[in-house]
């Protein structure tokens, strides 16, 4: 599975794509199966929104406690917040998806981000 992420221009907040808009919670993110062409379309659309978001890329997901979580550790930290301040960032809100993210294991770099870095 995949999701689309970016940082919001005005405040740097981590955001996820949902049906043509950007949402703050990973729990609300739109998920696509790996071969879904809509993911790539959404990515292209996101990248055209230069005054709304920056660094748009697709992330790979892994199953965790029956839910989906970002596969790479880095993306889980982005979706949660810093591990040294449990009350800072999105994790402060709690909930099943947050917990699933906190318990997720699995390790790999997100291909979307690797491509982003390569292009630079």
């Amino acid at each position, binding site marked *: 599975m995949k999701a689309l992420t970016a*940082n919001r*221009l*005005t*405040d*740097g*907040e*981590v955001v996820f794509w949902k049906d043509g808009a950007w949402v703050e919670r990973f729990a609300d993110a739109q998920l696509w199966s790996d071969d879904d062409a809509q993911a790539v379309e959404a990515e292209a659309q996101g990248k055209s929104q*230069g*005054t709304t978001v*920056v*660094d748009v890329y697709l992330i790979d997901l892994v199953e965790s406690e029956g839910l989906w979580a970002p*596969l*790479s*550790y*880095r993306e889980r*930290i*982005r979706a949660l*917040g*810093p*591990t*040294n*301040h449990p009350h*800072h*960032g999105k994790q402060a809100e709690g909930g099943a998806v947050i917990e699933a993210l906190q318990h997720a294991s*699995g*390790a*790999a*770099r997100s291909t979307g981000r690797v491509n982003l870095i390569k292009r630079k």
Partner: protein
Amino acid sequence: MYQYDTIDKEMLADRSAEFRGQVARRLSGELTEDQFKRLRLMNGLYLQLHAYMLRVAIPYGSLNPTQLRKLAWIGRTYDKGYGHFTTRTNLQFHWIKLKDAPDILDHLASVDMHAIQTSGNCIRNTTTDPYAGATAEEVDDPRVWAEAIRQWSTFHPEFTFLPRKFKIAITAAPKDRTAARVHDIGLVLKRARDGALGFEVIVGGGMGRTPHIGPTIREFLPVNRLLSYLEAILRVYNRHGRRDNIYKARIKILVAALGKDEFARQVEAEWAKIGEAVDLPDTELARIRGAFAPLGFETLPERSEAFETAKASTPAFARFARNNVKPHKKSGYGIVEISLKAIGETPGDATSDQMEVVADLAERFGQGDIRVTHEQNLVLPHVKLDDLPAVWAGLEAAGLATPNINLVSDIIACPGLDYCALANARAIPIAQHIAEKFRDQDRAEQVGELKIKISGCINACGHHHVGHIGILGVDKKGEEFYQLTLGGSGAEDAAVGSMLGPALPYEKVADAVDTLVDVYLRERKDGERFLDTFRRTGVAPFKEAVYADAH
């Protein structure tokens, strides 16, 4: 301390106004992210994992209480009530909004502060001895020259687009608290036999992917020729430093490629042509020197009864005095180090409340002088021994009296993967786990001086190469691993650490450090520091113990 005059203030105001315009152009879409990124970085504004990060310059690590209170206020108003002191003696706010950044720069400018040249390929903030003006070890006050460099390097028209970033350190004491030998330029102030002041000039030290201990290219540079000599070094670098590969662009690569003698020859040839025009006139040097004139110290006896009594009656205070109070050049005074390494907390973090406590104490007891160290601690350089019990009580109440300066839990750590977009692995929790192992202060004191430095990636913001124990976070297929090095030093006996063995997984690092310390305690001879023992025994006994499980 140096006071900004109208010229200094107008420079900041002009910069702030320029940045406000640039942010507006970005938000309106007139500037693309690629175009804007370079401009915001020139003002220390990074986009990190969770938000923007603003790196505020603290020139040569010197602050007054008004400035520290303003930083506290900014932390409370625009961040989450704290700030993070860095190994460049700057302060980073980690939760900044782009739309607030122009206002923050205005607030900073109102107390003579800014974020100028805290990023980008330009001359960055100069590091100097946090004990400057307070230690008897120094031959002269290095801040005079650090301020001269601040002005010379600010908006230097020729050196704003160097091959790579450029960092200068100045120390005037034989005991180096600035890591001068691992800077692009390290300047060691010395006095010649005839009394003249001059700099030993070290060029081409550095950390990152290829650590180098910088060689000395000139043994004695008359102090009043400093700026022209720096100009010669920077010009040779600007023209000949590599620009084809970001990892080979620092001056250390150029110096190593040319050899130090050839590099020195080119600098001397350029310097001869530059002449004296860019050197500061004596009148300006005198003006700057006047700003750092010795403070009005009282004549006090060597021994303070209040201090001795408090030590005898309060063991915790005695421990603090033993570890965090250093000798002052004036009798009856001490230099107080404030550890930002409370056990279990984030190294270098201070809450807004804590910053205000330090500001108040500096005002009441410390002649309004506050320093930031490159080891991410704060210093009150001038405190009467008589006042130490009160200062300690104030610090203690704010959670700032951790008595661990230079001890195993006084760990340098970069923000790492918890915040930084470049990081491969977390650094902060590793520091926290190690510190927990040495929560017992008796054991920590028994171990003695041990400098642990942790970086979350090869850029080495956490100075891992020069840690007695260095820890480097690496990414193995998306998983956090840590490469340990031993025997590094950033002090006057500078050395790059050598690799211990294969990288360790996250859960094993704190235990491995514990094991290393046990080996040291077993092997050490009369009064040796960890570093001394390692240098005598070599890596073998340490390696054997840490990787024993693997055999």
